[in-house]
């Protein structure tokens, strides 16, 4: 049954797994002063995985291992982007982690395993694979949060994350079992076919659907399943927050697409309503509560809740332009989010987290360049042109209007005016206030270059978004999902 092609389909995962093991073992023989050897080995593994994701991209979707995984353009595109995000996260966090005793082999290995979990999720062809990938991702993240043992906040955050995450996983699994009970299969393609022919007990299906949507909403951090987000974002070391807040959103998008749009595509009318409630609540609550925050990380946590609401708005249009808009939104958000937490780590130093809003006071006086980068990040999150965040919002609004939900688009724009207030406040702190902290900004050259490139990418994709928009459309079309 299993042939060479099957292995080609999961080449990125194989490379990543072998690489993670190599880093794990190799790190044992590396002294504390030479951790950068493990770091660069990790980067090589990531580069190899990213390359193999692009190199093995098939022109048409291809199932492997009896349908347990699929290899399609969408999967490979998202895998590539996740690799880039994790790689950037490691670059940005180098100085930060070193100052906190987190620049260790375990950090790299866990990051690689988390990425492996994301890739498995992205490429899943069956509910079992989806769940396995999700658990691998979650367990690695729980451990990464908890690794900062000297911090009470991090330990507390890890506990909360673990307990609530386990609960959500249970809910998800329960929902999957109901779908299985009703359709008799765990294979996404088979479930979709069974439902399309109208088989299956509708009551059980809907019951299962509610649990599935709840599980997905938890992982996305959508209201009312958002309670873990601010505490975990705030408590975790910023390097880990960066990981939690970026690449997994891409995996969550793929997860949602495979689960709701493909497997349960026939029930679109039922999940559309549920997602609508989640989207509106997330946008409203996320944006309103973010105003009251004094901590940068908590503010960004609520901002992520609001942004996930926006992404859901694109998704719930349940049409091709909606899915591609949601995908574009996820990518744009990840790109922006990487830069936002990267900036926090850039300003931090030993014994100073730079995670309060007031730590950004007078940044323009300290460094006009970094103030400008942060300005781009804030306007991108607020969705003001000419940044990529504008096209993300534009695309989802277009999808919602296209699906006939003009009122939803109006709600969305009203909440983004509320949102603009707190993003503007950061710009105000940087540009209008005087600096209280005059310490020079000192970071490694590589993280400075990557962060600058990341910030400028927000502007570049804001002026020329076609490339990225096109990638989303092509990825979905070639995967037979449009």
């Amino acid at each position, binding site marked *: 049954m299993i042939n060479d092609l099957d292995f080609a389909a999961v080449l990125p995962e194989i490379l990543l797994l072998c690489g993670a093991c190599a880093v794990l073992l190799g790190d044992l023989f590396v002294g504390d002063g030479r951790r950068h050897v493990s770091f660069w080995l990790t980067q090589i593994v990531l580069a190899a995985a990213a390359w193999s994701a692009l190199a093995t991209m098939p022109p048409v979707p291809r199932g492997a291992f009896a349908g347990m995984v699929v290899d399609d353009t969408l999967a490979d595109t998202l895998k590539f982007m996740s690799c880039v995000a994790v790689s950037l996260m490691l670059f940005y966090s180098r100085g930060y982690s070193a100052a906190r005793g987190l620049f260790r082999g375990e950090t790299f290995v866990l990051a690689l395993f988390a990425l492996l979990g994301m890739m498995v999720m992205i490429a899943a062809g069956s509910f079992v694979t989806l769940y396995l990938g999700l658990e691998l991702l979650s367990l690695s993240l729980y451990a990464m949060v908890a690794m900062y043992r000297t911090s009470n906040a991090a330990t507390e955050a890890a506990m909360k994350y673990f307990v609530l995450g386990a609960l959500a996983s249970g809910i998800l699994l329960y929902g999957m079992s109901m779908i299985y009970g009703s359709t008799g299969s765990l294979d996404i393609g088979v479930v979709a076919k069974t439902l399309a022919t109208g088989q299956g007990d509708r009551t059980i299906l809907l019951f299962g659907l509610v649990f599935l949507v709840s599980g997905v909403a938890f992982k996305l951090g959508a209201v009312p399943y958002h309670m873990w987000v601010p505490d975990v974002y705030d408590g975790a070391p910023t390097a880990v927050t960066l990981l939690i807040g970026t690449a997994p959103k891409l995996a969550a998008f793929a997860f949602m697409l495979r689960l709701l749009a493909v497997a349960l595509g026939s029930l679109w009318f039922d999940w559309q309503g549920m997602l609508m409630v989640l989207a509106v609540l997330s946008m409203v609550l996320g944006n309103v509560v973010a105003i009251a925050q004094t901590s940068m990380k908590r503010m960004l946590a609520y901002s992520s809740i609001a942004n996930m609401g926006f992404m859901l708005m694109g998704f719930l249009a349940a049409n091709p332009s909606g899915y591609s808009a949601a995908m574009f939104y996820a990518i744009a958000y990840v790109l922006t989010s990487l830069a936002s937490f990267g900036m926090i780590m850039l300003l931090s130093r030993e014994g100073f987290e730079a995670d309060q809003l007031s730590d950004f006071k007078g940044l*323009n006086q300290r460094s*006009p360049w970094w103030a400008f980068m942060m*300005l781009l990040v804030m*306007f991108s999150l607020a969705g*003001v*042109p*000419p940044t990529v965040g*504008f096209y993300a919002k*534009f*695309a989802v*609004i*277009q999808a919602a*209007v*296209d699906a006939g939900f*003009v009122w939803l*688009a*109006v709600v969305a*724009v*009203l909440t*983004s*005016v509320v949102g*603009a*207030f707190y993003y*503007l*406040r950061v*710009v*105000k702190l940087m*540009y*209008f206030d005087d600096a209280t902290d005059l310490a020079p900004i000192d970071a490694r050259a590589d993280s400075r270059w990557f962060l600058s490139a990341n910030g400028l990418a927000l502007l570049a994709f804001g002026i020329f*978004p*076609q490339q990225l*928009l*096109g990638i989303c*459309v092509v990825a979905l079309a070639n995967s037979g999902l449009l």
Partner: protein
Amino acid sequence: MMPYLSLSIWVPIVAGLAVLAVGRDRDAAAARWIALAGAIAGLAVTLPLWLHFDTGTSQMQFVERSEWIPRFDIHYHLGVDGISMLFVLLNSLMTLVVVWSAWEVIQVRVAQYMAAFLIQSGLINGAFCALDGILFYMFFEAMLIPMYIIIGAWGGPNRVYAAVKFFLYTLLGSLLMLVALVYLYDVSETFSILDWYKVPLSLKVQVLLFIAFFLSFAVKVPMWPVHTWLPDAHVEAPTGGSVVLAAITLKIGAYGFVRFILPIVPDAARYLSHFVIALSLIAIVYIGFVALVQADMKKLIAYSSISHMGFVTLGFFLFSQLGMEGGLVQMISHGFVSAAMFLCVGVMYDRMHSRQIADYGGVVNTMPKFAAFMMLFAMANSGLPATSGFVGEFMVILASVKVNFWLGATAATIMIVGAAYTLWMYKRVIYGAVGNDQVAALTDLNRREFWMLGAVALLVFWMGLWPKPFIDVMHSSVADLLAHVAKSKL
């Protein structure tokens, strides 16, 4: 042919980036000279628009069109007609004036100040030239960013409040417009503004679109009752910021009425014209009285701006050639006059660091040249014949009398109220005995200030005495627009 419109957009922006790259706080002189060169180059590339403009046609001229975002059929589509061309010139000219006016006045973060104005100038030109809905929206929104920073970073004591209020007010309106643009795309499958002119729409849809567009542009004009951001923004902004706000950004709101609302939703515009006329009259009369009681000179001019812009919207919604041309002439004239008034206040503020009328008195004794200039601009602001302020107002009043005598009579009260608040302020500030020791120590205009005000004064006279070249430019475009608005889209 040279892509003059692209140049008018990108030359200032590139110059602004160059200023940022070269000028540091220690090297302010370099920043000033590069900014001046950039502003002159920016004006130079717009002059061919005036020279090569064909006044005989209502078609778009200097058109540039290329694909930009095929995913949503968005094009980089630029063009000007008789309505928009003059504003590109006005904006490029005002940028030069602003750079000149800030020369030695701005001492902190000079490079950023100059760069913000240059970049904003390019973005504003973009908004006037854009013929694609999303391209317009890009420029329309992006120009908020430099102005937000200008007010917040170089403004007065209450600058943060004013800057945030300015940004949020405008953003609220413009985001609703975004929904309207997306809706139009959904109906017509295109973002081309000119194609939208031909899309049939039901009255209900037209009214909803009207509301979305109206909120966006009425905030920008600003019309009563969504005007409250303007006095705050004007009072707190540095002189250059006030000049650009009053002379240019308000005009984008009024421009939106003629580019979007009237041709895209003509039936709703006619259906709701009484509503807009009522708001305009309230702005003209009520805000005029509000201006009368201001103690702060900048606030007084800000309210006077709102009142004068009421004339513009009134002229547009009379749906007559005279009214619309009067509105457009008033927009340009107000660009000169309000800019000049803010420059005058800036000149005094630089010396006394006060904008309160009560802190002055008898300035003419120490600054006679300045008093003469300010006299001219005060007269223009109150609409004296032979100044530019008279032409537009007279045309609109004439047009409104034709519609209804009492409408014209009410509008004409601006001639009285406007003269009252402007000249009363002038009297209290300039005339009388020397008010205090500070006034006694004032020095008259230096050469830079003299030429800065002199240049604007020439324009005020030109437009007041010989407005025909301006009206010729807009004539066929306005006629075509009115013919289009008269046709129902139902």
